[in-house]
């Protein structure tokens, strides 16, 4: 874990990274080429003097609340459901967002963070808020190479509503050096490069699919791939606005329509992925 003076040193070098006319030594410094930057800037000297091992981050202006919806449950692989239960709010500086007991809201840090390839971080709540029932961030790891505002998952586990205000210090960031090949340490998060919180998408991996798929699913997917290839041969391409069922044979379509909703969403999502991939890479 990095201590205050080392974080401050890296922040100082990072602050120079965008400057023109750096001398050769400075311009070739790895911490300038791939810098640690936090904007709005923390004053590195002040921070070094504090001796703290973590940097306080502030609450941003965008929130996503999860509201009650007419749904029996959430499905793992159903992105369309997100629209039904997620609502985005903008709260200007000077205004408050009231988080009620046992409510949950997604927020972001006010700071835009750029981590170099050799550093990772952890977001932790601040104890002064935790003692009042405000729990911040449950998915706390920030990967090397992350760029963007951090999403915070905030819950009020106390008994009275808490007013949270954009700009207030809400969490802290601990930095760690990462050992290994830096070029492989690139962040591939779907949330990178974003300034607003988002629900994102949970993609079941192949391991999970193979465990849960009906044997017929593999057959339908392979038939579907063949049908798309044939269509490309015949017509030279696919219509990007097509519904997945447009290229599906009648028997498979009926089979899918009669599946329980969870399984139907799962196979539809697999076909959607195959269609999207074939449209973007028709030659594969």
């Amino acid at each position: 874990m990095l201590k205050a003076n080392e974080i401050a040193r890296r922040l100082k070098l990072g602050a120079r990274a965008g400057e023109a006319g750096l001398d050769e030594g400075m311009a070739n410094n790895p911490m300038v080429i791939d810098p640690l930057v936090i904007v709005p800037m923390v004053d590195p000297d002040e921070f070094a003097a504090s001796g703290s091992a973590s940097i306080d981050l502030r609450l941003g202006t965008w929130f996503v609340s999860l509201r009650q919806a007419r749904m029996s449950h959430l499905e793992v692989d159903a992105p369309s459901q997100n629209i039904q239960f997620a609502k985005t709010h903008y709260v200007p500086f000077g205004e408050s967002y009231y988080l009620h007991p046992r409510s949950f809201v997604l927020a972001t840090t006010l700071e835009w963070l750029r981590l170099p390839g050799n550093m990772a971080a952890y977001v932790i709540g601040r104890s002064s808020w935790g003692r009042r029932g405000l729990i911040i961030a449950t998915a706390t790891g920030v990967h090397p190479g992350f760029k963007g505002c951090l999403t915070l998952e905030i819950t009020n586990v106390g008994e009275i509503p808490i007013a949270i205000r954009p700009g207030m210090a809400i969490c802290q960031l601990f930095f760690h050096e990462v050992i290994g090949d830096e070029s492989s340490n690139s962040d591939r998060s779907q949330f990178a490069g974003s300034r607003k919180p988002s629900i994102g998408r949970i993609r079941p991996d192949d391991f999970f699919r193979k465990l849960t798929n009906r044997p017929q699913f593999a057959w339908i997917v392979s038939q579907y791939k063949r049908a798309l290839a044939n269509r490309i041969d015949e017509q030279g391409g696919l219509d990007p606005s097509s519904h997945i069922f447009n290229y599906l044979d009648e028997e498979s379509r009926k089979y899918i329509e009669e599946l329980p909703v969870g399984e139907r969403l799962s196979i539809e999502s697999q076909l959607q992925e195959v269609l999207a991939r074939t449209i973007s890479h028709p030659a594969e």
Partner: protein
Amino acid sequence: MPSYVLIGLPAPESSNPLLLPLAGHELGHSLWRANNLGEELYPKVVGAVFASIFQNKDDFYKTYHSEITDIDIAKAQPQELAEFLKNNIRFFTNAIEWARSQAEETFCDFTGLRLFGVSYLKSFAYLASPRLSMQRDEAYPRLTTRVRNLVEIAPRFGVKPPEGFEGLFEDDPEADYQNSMRFNLTVADEALGDLRESIFNKAQALLSDEFVPTPSDDEASQILRWIRLVVPAKGARSLADILNAAWLAFEDKTLWKDIPDLHKKKDDVLKELILKNIEIFEIESRQKD
């Protein structure tokens, strides 16, 4: 909402910061009204319309000779004709109104250009090239006239128009006006040429350097260096510099090529980064206050 400028954009562009310079045009309308420029320039507008009628005396005669009997248009001396026009302004109300309105729109274009520099031209082209609509609105100058005015005035605001800019536009089709309406539109369009210098002077006086910083290429390059690092710039001097840098980044097809996951969604990430940079600019301004 006195502190707001509203701009209508196609829905898919509603969160596109690259088009923010177009707000400069709308702000121009507020400046026009707040400074009573319509009233102040009205005598010049009328004078320019009359001058245009003088220049089109033959067409004036052909258009109106059957309606106007108390003066011989063809033989009238300039002084006599001027007196007649002054007393019969009702024949040219459309021309005066169109010329006044075109003058206001031209002032607003100059405001956008002065405030945002080259990014005003780029966002204008993004939205209005090659045409604006299915039929020309006479309250605006012809699209090619607007563009020519912008290009010719740009160097006086220290702005270098993008290469081939004028060639990106063509005029919207015009209504099939006949007789007096056609004549009114012709003189209104021509009158604008006489008014351009006065309009430029007004924009320049109202938007002086001490009021609004002139967009700077050096500042935009500095911000672009931060954008290349996928970081909002600190210490930006103005919104215009941020947006000019944003356009340079948008036009750079190799931006973030060494970060494939970002390069794939370059335009989306760039928009987020620029909106964040604008927020950072606001935060830094508040901290200074």
